[in-house]
């Protein structure tokens, strides 16, 4: 099977309005290399030039960049450009996955040496800052997991249930809306649905992680692709030992199993571990960023010249196209696929 290659451009601009005298930033903007994902090219350009910068890996193995700005500046522009190849990696037969109780019991502690992959999965088994584990969540997921249900079948049913019962609504939530409130309102964006689904799975004793990345969107027929019209995306990965990669991705916002149209940046326990750009500033006025994401399938479309090569200088384009809203990707109709 052929990999699908993409060019992704992720631009973030802060216009602080007044001077920021000191700023420190943590970036999760470099794609992770996976068994099914190669990173052919990748670079991050920053204006102004940071006073200090260090690249490394975080505790979950994701690439991370820290940087600091020690001199006054009133805007910050970060441009991450990458070429990534994604291989098809759908699970062959979800019916063949282990019964969910068996997975649950393997993850529970019994004072013997755990299997390394199980131990590894327990990192994603417990509460985390955005994922409270409450019995309401186990109750919500219960009808998707009758006894002896293969874990991937149950997870798919849970994804479908969330997709069916929840409404995509960028106005309903913020970055910090708790999952129980999302459960009550039945509204939210991809981040909320991912957190909710993770919370349900963990409440059942299953391990689930939060994946951040990008999703290919299709312009309306006959219309050209708009630069910056996409957005970053988030979905869920569940631990299913015995399946091809031990972990299988689910996208509750779109009710599908991610394959070659999802590009992975990083994974963690939840959003807080891998927020694309997190910082602390001293001074400044406005702190709402403009974010623009463009995802282009390299082998299908002509690439606008500005995206073809990573720019040597990081001078920002005079005007960033205004993305509809950063955290809220347009919902893709699954029937299109």
């Amino acid at each position, binding site marked *: 099977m052929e990999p699908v290659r993409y060019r992704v451009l992720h631009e*973030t601009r802060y216009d602080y309005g007044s001077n920021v005298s000191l700023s420190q930033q943590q970036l999760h903007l470099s794609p992770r290399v996976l068994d099914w994902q190669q990173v052919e090219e990748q670079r991050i350009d920053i204006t102004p030039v940071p006073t200090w910068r260090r690249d490394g890996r975080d505790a979950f193995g994701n690439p991370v960049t820290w940087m600091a700005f020690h001199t006054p500046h009133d805007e910050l522009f970060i441009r991450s450009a990458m070429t990534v190849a994604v291989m098809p990696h759908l699970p062959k037969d979800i019916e063949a996955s282990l019964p969910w109780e068996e997975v649950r019991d393997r993850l529970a*502690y*019994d004072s013997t040496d755990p299997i390394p992959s199980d131990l590894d999965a327990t990192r994603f*088994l417990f509460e985390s800052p955005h994922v409270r584990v409450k019995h309401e969540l186990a109750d919500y997921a219960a009808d998707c997991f009758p006894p002896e249900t293969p874990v991937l079948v149950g997870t798919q049913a849970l994804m479908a249930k969330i997709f069916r019962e929840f409404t995509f609504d960028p106005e309903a939530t913020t970055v910090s809306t708790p999952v129980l409130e999302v459960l009550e309102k039945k509204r939210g964006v991809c981040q909320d649905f991912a957190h909710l689904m993770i919370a349900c799975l963990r409440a059942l004793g299953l391990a689930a992680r939060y994946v951040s990345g990008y999703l290919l969107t299709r312009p309306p027929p006959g219309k050209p692709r708009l630069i910056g019209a996409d957005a970053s995306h988030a979905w869920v990965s569940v631990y299913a030992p015995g399946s091809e990669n031990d972990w299988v991705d689910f996208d509750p916002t779109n009710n599908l199993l991610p394959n070659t149209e999802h590009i992975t940046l990083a994974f963690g*326990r939840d959003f807080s571990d891998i*927020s694309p750009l*997190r910082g*602390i*500033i*001293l001074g400044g006025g406005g702190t709402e960023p403009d974010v623009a994401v463009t995802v282009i399938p390299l082998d299908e479309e002509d690439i606008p010249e500005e995206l073809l090569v990573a720019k040597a200088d990081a001078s920002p384009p005079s005007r960033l196209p205004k993305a509809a809203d950063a955290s809220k990707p347009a919902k893709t109709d699954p029937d299109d696929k």
Partner: protein
Amino acid sequence: MARTLLAIYPHSPRRYDEMLAADGSVRPHWNQFLEHLDAVTPEEMRRRLDFSEQRIQENGVTYNVYADPNGADRPWALDPLPLIIPPDEWAELSAAVAQRATLLNAILDDLYGEQTLLAEGLLPPALVYGQHGYLWPCRGVKPPGGVWLHNYAVDLARSPNGRWWVIADRTQAPSGAGYALENRLIVSRVFPEMFRDLHVQHVADFFRDQLDGLTALAPVEGDEQPHMVLLTPGPYNETYFEHAYLARYLGFPLVEGQDLTVRGETVYLKTLRGLKRVHVILRRQDDAYCDPLELRGESALGIPGLLNVARAGRVVIANALGSGLLASGALMGFLPAICRHLLGEKLAMPSVATWWCGEKPALDYVKENFDDLVIKPAYPTQNMDPVFGNELKGEARAEMLRRIEARPHAYVAQEMVNLSQAPTWSRAHERRLLARPVGLRAYAVTTPDGYSVMPGGLARVTTGAGTRIISMQRGGASKDCWVLTNGPVSQFSLLKPSVGVRDLVRAGSNLTSRVVENLFWLGRYSERFDDSARMLRVALSRVVVGGGQKTPVVIAAMELARRLGVLPEPGEDTEVKEGGEHELLEAIYDPEQPGSLARNIRALMWSATHVRERLSLDHWHSLNRLQRDQQAALKTHPTLTEAIAFLDRVLGVSSSLTGFAMDNMTRDDGWRFLFIGRRLERLSFLSMMVAHFLRMPAARSQGSLEWLLELSDSIITYRSRYSRQPELLPVVDLLVFDESNPHGVVFQGNVLGNYLERMGRELGDDFGAGLAAALAPLQAFDLRRLENIQFDSARDYSACEELADILQSLDSAANKLSEALGMRYFTHVGDVSRQTMAV
């Protein structure tokens, strides 16, 4: 004699008694002390208790019960009788404490590194990954020397068979060692003969070991001296007293997060004389709040970027970030096996029997033996008080069991321990010993040769004989702990017996920018509060004299108050009520109104709180009283007379604050900033007061000049010089040009210039130029132009306007100076770092 004290001492067979053996005889190591106690007369004992209480009061030893900005701190409670421990018993105990510290350090190193404990199934992942205390970003950090746990404390209790057990481990930022030190300094003077004769081991060596241990680890480069600081969350923390006390004792600057700043991979202290690299941070702030960039982002307390300095190994953070993890009681049951695995030894001291409900067999046991157990949270970050199984009945019990069933891994159960009892001195009786349950908190610090254990510690007793939880928050008392030795007593002391010439400390050069900034604002606010009280008193007394009528004088005074920002600008729809009483009362008492006196009091309190250790207790109390009066008045609708009396008291407090600062504070950089703040504020107020007055048509009425003199506190000077009604020229001369009147513009300008010049010489900056330039036109102003102007009826006010313009530019120069000083020297405590997030 001894019989009298022992005769009524309650002896319980169910508990181990520290003083009495099972057969009722006095334990040998208590004999001498008890005899001494019996020989002391009640009067003498009373005198000693008074001494102890007095020391606590004078030293301001407090324990904040609530985070209450109004200062609800409570004097430290100390029972004068020490807990006495014989040499051989201590040798065993301290070795066990040191072993446990070594073990816990090794566990932290493993869990943030290789994680063999998880891989071998020696510890459930729930107790690591399931804890908020496991700080993920710290995974892979290698602290200098491999030391995570620099300061360790352990709560110990003695079971009925006489063995010591561990009740709880403190690994976050253990508190109490400073209180233990203060207790020692007091109790050793309450019983000086006994302290000497019994060969009590001194605790000073322990603090020297702590210094040595941190010094050895400090990542210094070249010939750098290790620069160590004590990081406190601030004055509202319950043990703030101890932070300040230890910082002084160890000789560390006491700093808050805002005092430190990270540049690249180095952390610095912001001082008046620039950034100074910090090598060691002795941390009393919880780790999750230490770096908002990677840990809890909503925290304004932290130091953004600190983790990157830790990753680079360029700072010792004691304890290392992430150490709070091990305070979980759920770990206790796993320690014996882990000790064998990591240290290859048997765990020397048992923990109180503990069941982690996350294991099925343990959960079953807990359900079956609920009445004999204490239920506690498994994770120290959970907010839950211990629950005694046998006290839970009916629905409450069923509810607790349901909660445990739903999230078993979040709970532990511990065997109920019958604490040992120790004698305490009764305050209610003339001469009586009471028996109270006692626990001991012991301390260990890292040194190059392993852990050193404080000989002694903080012993604590409960309030009642039957009380089960020992807690200072709940009103328990503390005790000194005397560890006896057979050998000689080390005489080392960090408190030098006498000060030599080399030890002389002159005006502190180590002032942090934050302290200087708070002093500057304390100066500005105390002047501002004085000015607005005076302005309000002038207006209010004119209202009273006018019988509530809007006389021209009242109108003029209120307009000036408005122009000076003491009264708010009237909104378009608000009809000014007749007489203006209501408006004036609001400007005094309403803290929500911008510019009000109440608001100034609040701002003053805020600055004062942050430099509290530099104020006398008396002044602190009078400020507190003032704020309480103002808050009480909000509810009672004070009359005009009461309001005037309140303003009189405000002015009284204000002048005593000034007197204190002039007479009693050392003239260091901090003092200078306090007075620069005051002078700047007054210069600005006086300039604008005269400028507005000269321009206001409303002021051009009879009697105005008189209240202007009153407002600037110069009326007595005027009368003594000119025995006639106030006239424009002499009044302006006095309030603006007279170089000897402290309530005059030129006087303030000159004094301020002197301060700036002195500061410029010492700190190498020149801030005086702008001010001097703004003062020059005043010197050039020809006063003869004001001759023969009848202020209430002149035809030409152009000379007045011109003078007003000069004064106004002087005010601008003062404001610019204030900003420039802030840019250069302050941390900008008002400018809080903010988190930003993009997806």
